[in-house]
């Protein structure tokens, strides 16, 4: 079942097209990583998904509700952590969360219990009566995450959630994201940190210059990438490796007498092992060198 449906989303600022006919879906219960270089249109997409930026064209539906026609229905069920934002600096951590909790139909006890839970979760219980202006950047980011969780949202939208956090803070955010998924929640997060996306995401969307360039699970994206860019097959044999003359081979790079990397248009491992067996050559290892997400990402940005 779909949690987020974005269809033909388009947004321009003057002559600059920030988001161009963007369409994708996020399924319930998955962690979706939205990857793109700076200025690719990630934040514009997210703000459009929340109705904070009004798109020129397109629709966004979250949990079946149109974001622009039924904004309150949508907002009651989502949580949002924006990039480069802070909370009300003159208020304490507790008062900030209380302010956001007041938008929902909590009883006083429920509200206080929820605030206490969240402040403990993000490690700010001891600082609950301190004004936010005295907080470090990491503490502010953790409090922002707490406000995003105040209504126990079904869909969590996080814009660069670990930006500005120390490793401990980043680990906390990632573990909270995983916990939310375990509870069956949907998490949509944007990032330009590849390792983070690789580590957390069930599916990934790569946006470049406002257009979606890749979408799917990491395996699907890598496979699609290899089909387009070619396969790198590493081979090592006991005997000397002969020249390989198979259809689909683009070139062969020798590492030594027994080792080589074969660049092919398709996965030719089967044909290669048959060929080597016919020639009486024993294979020590034969594997496809999978591209890293970094390879895919960089090639997507610069080549496609």
């Amino acid at each position, binding site marked *: 079942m779909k949690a987020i449906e974005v269809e033909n989303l388009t947004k321009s600022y003057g002559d600059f097209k920030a988001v161009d006919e963007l369409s994708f879906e996020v399924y319930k219960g998955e962690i979706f990583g939205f990857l793109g270089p700076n200025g690719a249109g990630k934040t*514009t997409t997210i703000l459009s998904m929340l109705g904070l*930026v009004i798109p020129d064209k397109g629709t966004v539906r979250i949990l079946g509700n149109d974001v622009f026609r039924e904004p309150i229905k949508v907002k009651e069920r989502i949580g*949002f952590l924006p990039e480069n*934002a*802070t909370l009300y600096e*003159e208020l304490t951590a507790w*008062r900030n969360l209380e302010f*956001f909790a007041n*938008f929902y139909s909590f009883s006083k006890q429920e509200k206080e219990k929820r605030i206490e839970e969240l402040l403990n979760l993000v490690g700010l219980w001891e600082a609950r009566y301190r004004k936010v202006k005295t907080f470090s950047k990491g503490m502010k980011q953790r409090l922002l995450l707490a406000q995003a969780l105040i209504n126990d949202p079904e869909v969590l939208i996080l814009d660069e959630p670990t930006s500005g956090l120390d490793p401990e803070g980043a680990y906390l955010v990632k573990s909270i994201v995983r916990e939310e998924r375990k509870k069956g929640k949907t998490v949509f997060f944007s990032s330009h940190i590849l390792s983070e996306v690789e580590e957390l995401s069930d599916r990934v969307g790569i946006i470049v210059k406002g257009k979606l360039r890749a979408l799917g699970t990491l395996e699907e994206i890598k496979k699609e990438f290899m089909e387009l860019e070619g396969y790198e097959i590493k081979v090592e044999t006991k005997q000397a490796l002969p020249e390989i003359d198979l259809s689909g081979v683009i070139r062969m790079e020798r590492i030594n007498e027994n080792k080589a990397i074969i660049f092919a248009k398709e996965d030719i491992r089967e044909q290669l092992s048959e060929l080597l067996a016919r020639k009486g050559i024993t294979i020590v290892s034969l594997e496809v060198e999978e591209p890293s997400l970094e390879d895919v990402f960089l090639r997507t940005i610069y080549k496609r």
Partner: protein
Amino acid sequence: MSSILNVSMKEIYEGIKTKRLLIVLVVFLMTGAGYAYWIKSTIMRIGLLDTDMALNAAQNSQISSMMLFLAILGAIFGADAINREVERGTIKVTLSHPIYRDQYLLGKFLGRMAVVIMAFLIFAIGSIAFLLILGVPLGSEFVATFVKMLPFFVLFSLVYLSLGFLLSTFIKKPSTAIIVAVILPIFLEIVYPSVASTLVVLMSLREGVAPTNPIVLQEALKKVYLLLSPVPGYHMDNILNAIKYGVSISEFSELLASGGFSLTLKPSNISYLEAIGIAWKNIVALVIMFLLPFAIAYAKFMKMELR
């Protein structure tokens, strides 16, 4: 708790905690104290000749200073209402929760209005206290006028608050908007009326007619009033005249023309409703001056990109 009330309460809490309110209050209370001393010395000087006239002048000056305070306070408190939240990103956080944009704007407006009124009452009570401490005999008539004027002080503060909100939706940088918000009331309430009056007098002189002639003076006053019609303080003066002396602006100009600049009006005993009847056009003008900038700010805010 309703979303509007939630935002209003937050605004009040933040408003009274900020240093800005404290600074403005201290500056104005100090000015108020100095002003009270000046009024006292003026009364000592003129009072020997005409106590009523001296007291009248003192009361009018006091109300004018309160109006300027309200104007600056209102404009300052409105000027960073939206742009500061956009700058800090707090608006994105708040509007991602279940609240409509218009509820948010209204909540902010009501909250800030409450802070402005609270600050005004502190200033007004402080200023009156200074006068009483210095022994200026204000009398029950002054207190009655002040109480009758209170709803119009609120309306007047709304005019400047909504002008401040207008600035906050059009000027991106809060610091720039606040500077404009300080300049705007000073220009509208002090500089522009002085320039407008001087220009009309100069124009009369250029035509070779002395403005001391009652007919010429009345014509000149009409021109001045026309030029002053966009100034909120002008309408407040007219409402004050109606409440205190029971005269409309046309009657006032006639009296002024016939009596010259030495005209002294006697306080009248007309009812509050009658006074409102006399000054209804000025009240309507203030309501329009409040609603128009707010409506423009509202329209702009509803379409604003919150990047």
